[in-house]
């Protein structure tokens, strides 16, 4: 019973780290392969935050309940509040200068 609980914790941390690596690699591949700026913004916001949440949850599962996990929760909450603001500011910074025409058709993405 003594050795039972840490092994469960190690298993949860392992699963969370594997999902985090998958989402972060998909962020990098999506930043390279997507053809347009707004789709790159999609890859830069959602996949990145899913990877960040899973890596932080793995660290919390490895740590247990202490002051360190409270500090990790504070950093995670700060990241969850500020990253959508940064993405929104970048989208509006592009929208002021009209770099890309606003209406897309499906033929634009197939070339």
């Amino acid at each position, binding site marked *: 019973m003594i050795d039972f609980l840490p092994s469960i914790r190690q298993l949860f941390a392992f699963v969370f*780290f594997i999902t*985090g*690596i998958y989402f*972060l*690699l998909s*962020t*990098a*591949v999506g*930043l*390279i392969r997507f053809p347009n*700026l707004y789709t*790159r*913004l999609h890859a*830069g916001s959602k996949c*990145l935050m899913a*990877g*960040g949440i899973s*890596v*932080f949850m793995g*660290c919390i599962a*490895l740590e247990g309940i202490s002051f*360190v996990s409270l*500090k*990790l929760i*504070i*950093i995670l909450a*700060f*990241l969850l509040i*500020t*990253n959508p*603001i*940064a*993405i929104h*500011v*970048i989208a*509006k*910074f*592009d929208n002021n*200068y009209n*770099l890309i025409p606003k209406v897309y058709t499906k033929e634009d993405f197939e070339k």
Partner: protein
Amino acid sequence: MLYVILAIILSAILAFYRVFKGPSLPDRLVAMNSIGVMFLLVLVLLSYYFERKIFLDVALVYGISLFINVLIMAKYLKIPWKG
């Protein structure tokens, strides 16, 4: 633990291609934001590898500094004047 750090740094090097060859300026800004968040995760994981909890403060300060950088660049940086 170290394999996770290695995979995150490899994905950061892959994402640096978009900084190297972005057609316009907001492309590079998005790639810079992504690489910054990946480095923050590396700092958190390194504090678990060395088992010294003071390194979490470095991650917190770097997160605040990254957000201020993105806001200032989006406000003051302009498209260069042509003609």
